[in-house]
């Protein structure tokens, strides 16, 4: 079981330049925990003081925003991609 977490360019200064990391996480929450355990400096950029995912950061599981799934509890399966995308674009 392996999934990947894809890191946008702006975050890569916290991941020693890595564009993605592999993880054996079973849920989105575990995947984010793997990311922040491996690169602690990214932690406060992913979660706010209350431990919630930051308001301006969207997390996708493959093509879908996790808020349309089970949020951070969304289960992962082999080959899934978790994407972090800043919420910046708009009409």
């Amino acid at each position, binding site marked *: 079981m392996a999934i990947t977490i894809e890191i946008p360019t702006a975050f890569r200064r916290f991941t020693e330049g890595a564009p993605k990391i592999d993880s054996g996480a079973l849920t989105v929450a575990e995947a984010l925990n793997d990311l922040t355990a491996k690169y602690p400096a990214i932690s406060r950029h992913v979660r706010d003081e209350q431990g919630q995912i930051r308001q301006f950061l969207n997390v996708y599981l493959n093509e879908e*925003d996790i808020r349309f799934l089970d949020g951070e509890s969304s289960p992962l399966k082999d080959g899934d991609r978790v994407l972090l995308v800043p919420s910046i674009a708009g*009409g």
Partner: protein
Amino acid sequence: MKEIHYLRCRECGKKFANGPLSFCEECFAPLEVSYDYEALRRLANRDALRDRAFNMWRYSEFLPLPDGFVPTHAIGGTPLVKSRKFGERVGVKNLYFKNDAVCFPTLSFKDRVVATALVAARRFGFDTIGCSSTGNLANAVAAQGTQQGFETCVFVPADLEPVKILNSAVYGARIIRINGNYDHVNRLCTQIADKFRWGLVNVNLRPYYAEGSKTHGFEIAEQLGWELPDNVVVPMAGGSLIGKIAKAFCELAHLGWVEPKQVKFFGAQATGCSPIADGVKRNLPRFQPQKPNTIARSLAIGNPADGPFALRLIRESGGWAEDLSDPEIIDSIKLLAETEGIFGETAGGVTAGVAAKLIEQGRIGRDETTVVCITGNGLKTTDAIAADFPVQDAIEPRLEAFESLLEQHLQSNTSAQTEETHA
């Protein structure tokens, strides 16, 4: 002369030098253009406007433009229409429609934002520009981008109205249709801007793009005789325009061009895509994203990037938000056309209808001055109302044929009236 504008984080306040950046590297919140307001106060002079043409560039000092910038097109400068019949119908005296349905060159307020975005694109050395769009923005980017010699590429949801796709293609822009809704298109464009050196007006040029919207607000204040209205009703898609009208009013008050006033901001959405209105009505700390399903495609953004700011502004200003169902949108488009002679797009129907609803609810006072923002032209969304206007049978070019038709009309009107009387 020293440049007086810079980028600033909307959440943590960190300052950044001008560049194609749209979010804060500390907290990832959006950046916006800010100004040295003391310097602006010295530079900008209301009396100087007398010698300037009535278009968006008359407020140049308030926009992120380089020194010596010379505008090429008279964008903006749209009418503020004092309502008579619509206002009468809903029982208010001082109702106005700010009519960007006739904005030059592509008949929506997006012409304003693209104008400032392309100045930034030129400045930052981009050859290729583009956008993610629900249609109006694509039209504006296509028209101004190709005309100014940029390689122009617009990304749109595959199910967009054919007219809006045609209205971009005609300028020679490349159209990329995406299988997905606007939020999917947006996500893809964020990734493209991350990987390619392209200037995407509403992604990496977004702070400069959004500033263009302020001119809609400046014009409202000036057209009201340098006074602020009591209420503004604004359509919300990404949630940017409402905040920029507020910013424009604040800047004018700060410089003493208008008397300060607590303007109430009201947001309008379609029921089929109403994440911000839903957040206001249910008093949520954060809006919930939605999957759009509405004929008001130009407002069909289920995950609005400026939603948190719009939510905050509406609450803090004492305003409210409402939404309108698809059948109500169509009725409202017709009412606006019949009463004011303004053919707004579906979003215009949303905004006019929401204004009527808010007046009925008593949230907008009947003696107050209210401006309703119409941001796009009905000629672009004819699909949405075509079924309500079936093509009539033709008659022969003879007077008798006409008289016979007239007779039929009179009879059907009389019987309709009789039915109404009995109903």
